[in-house]
């Protein structure tokens, strides 16, 4: 009897949640008044069909393909250099954030890391375009800023969780702090650092492809430029290049992960 009452009560709260959710969804559709139904009229479908057809065939002239290839290389360079910068600053910030220079500094640096991480890459990119001008360097800095926050926090946690005995032993046998860190602590955490950095690099390649929309170089800038000039066939080539790039990264990381699976559990 009591169990039945409990079950009934539980379902009441479930139902309430569902009703609230459904009404919020309905309210959202009503608020936006998207007029998506106008997309379903015959004329709109015909327009849309014509629009899609205008993108084909993609521009595969040698000159343009060269520009696309350079855009892809630029995207890769932005993501790689950005991630490396972030790895460097991540380690520098993780040392105080792991509490080795006192509690006050730990809290202060953790606040900075949170701030770096909470501001999205695209916002950083808009800021960096102001600070460094249009071009790939702004994108590199933007990725570096956001990723420093992410990696700094992950690195700090790795440093806090690593055993202290090896570096303690070195310290007690007379090594300086720096040497104790290099030979006692770093070898233990380095594989984790590298794994985190590779994981973020994978995400950053995808991000670098779109940071160009605010002028930060790479494939995104090319796409934005061609779309502004209404060069549909060129846009199509760039989009295909982006798709291939992301698919290649996905495939590569899946393969690498499978290979590393045994070593990294």
């Amino acid at each position: 009897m009591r169990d039945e009452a409990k079950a009934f009560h539980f379902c009441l709260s479930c139902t309430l949640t569902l009703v609230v959710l459904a009404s919020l969804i309905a309210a959202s559709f009503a608020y936006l008044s998207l007029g998506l139904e106008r997309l379903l009229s015959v004329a709109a479908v015909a327009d849309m069909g014509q629009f899609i057809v205008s993108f084909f065939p993609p521009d595969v002239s040698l000159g343009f393909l060269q520009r696309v290839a350079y855009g892809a290389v630029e995207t890769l360079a932005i993501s790689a250099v950005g991630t490396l910068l972030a790895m460097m600053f991540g380690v520098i910030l993780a040392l105080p954030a792991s509490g080795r220079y006192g509690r006050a500094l730990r809290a202060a640096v953790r606040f900075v890391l949170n701030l770096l991480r909470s501001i999205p890459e695209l916002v950083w990119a808009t800021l960096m375009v102001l600070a460094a001008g249009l071009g790939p360097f702004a994108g590199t800095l933007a990725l570096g800023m956001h990723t420093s926050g992410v990696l700094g926090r992950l690195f700090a946690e790795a440093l806090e969780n690593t055993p202290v005995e090896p570096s303690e032993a070195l310290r007690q046998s007379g090594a300086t702090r720096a040497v104790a860190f290099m030979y006692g602590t770093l070898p233990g955490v380095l594989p984790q650092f590298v794994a985190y950095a590779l994981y973020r690099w994978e995400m950053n390649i995808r991000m670098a492809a779109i940071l160009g929309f605010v002028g930060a170089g790479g494939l995104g800038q090319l796409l934005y430029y061609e779309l502004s000039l209404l060069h549909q066939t060129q846009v199509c080539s760039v989009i295909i290049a982006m798709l291939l790039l992301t698919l290649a990264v996905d495939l590569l990381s899946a393969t690498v992960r499978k290979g590393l699976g045994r070593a990294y559990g």
Partner: protein
Amino acid sequence: MLLSATAIHPRDPDARRRATALVIAIIVLWPLLVVAQFNPAILFDAKNLAAMAAFLRGFVPPEMSAEFLGHVVRATVETLAIATTGITLAFVVAVPLALAVTRSLSVSRIGPGPGYWRGTAVRAGVRMLLTILRGLPELVWALVFVRVLGLGPAAAVLALAITYGGMLGKVYAEILESTDTTPARALLESGSRRGAALLYGLLPNAAPEIVSYTVYRWECAIRASVMMGFVGAGGLGQLMDQAMKLLHGGEAATILIVFLLLVQLADAISARLRKQLA
């Protein structure tokens, strides 16, 4: 300090390998730095510094006039509505595709019979469609849709429906295949329809995970819909983009603060919802 290290170990046994690795790293890195136009000096260029400083000085105090706050509130509600409608449409896109690729619901796989190759081909095709749907970031779709539908939230909602539809579809299928599939198989083998096998065989085990993933994606959709504002697809992002292009530091500061609060709030709501529904 490093000097003292060499004093302790006059011959580092690993020195040669380390030096080689360093040289190779520099050779690989150099072209990357050139392509990325890496030039920290530009940050300290007087003109850039002055522009940045003026903009950042504007951040304090944040803009707090009632009129501007009204805009911000409206944009925030719009962002939430975009994320919610986007996820709803993505769900509508994802469910049929996920059911089509779920192997544990396939009748033709059970035994020798007609339709095995057709079933396999359909699943492979739909799987490819899912990959393409989620292959492009939502920002790219939003940029293209803004050209077609004009500035405003419709572009963002459609972009979310496509990209998140692909993601949800793939993950739903994975969840349905990775739970205990024996009940569904037993039902199918004893002749039940696939709908019944899904409802009574798979969903009881898989539903909590599916709900929890969908709510998590809603949280991501909020962040994504702010980002899509930067290409003109409405909401908080569009307001932030305008404030930054016009160098209104105070407005940018207010919007950033609201954005950070919104993300925190979504995080809390999603944690609660997941607890309640799962």
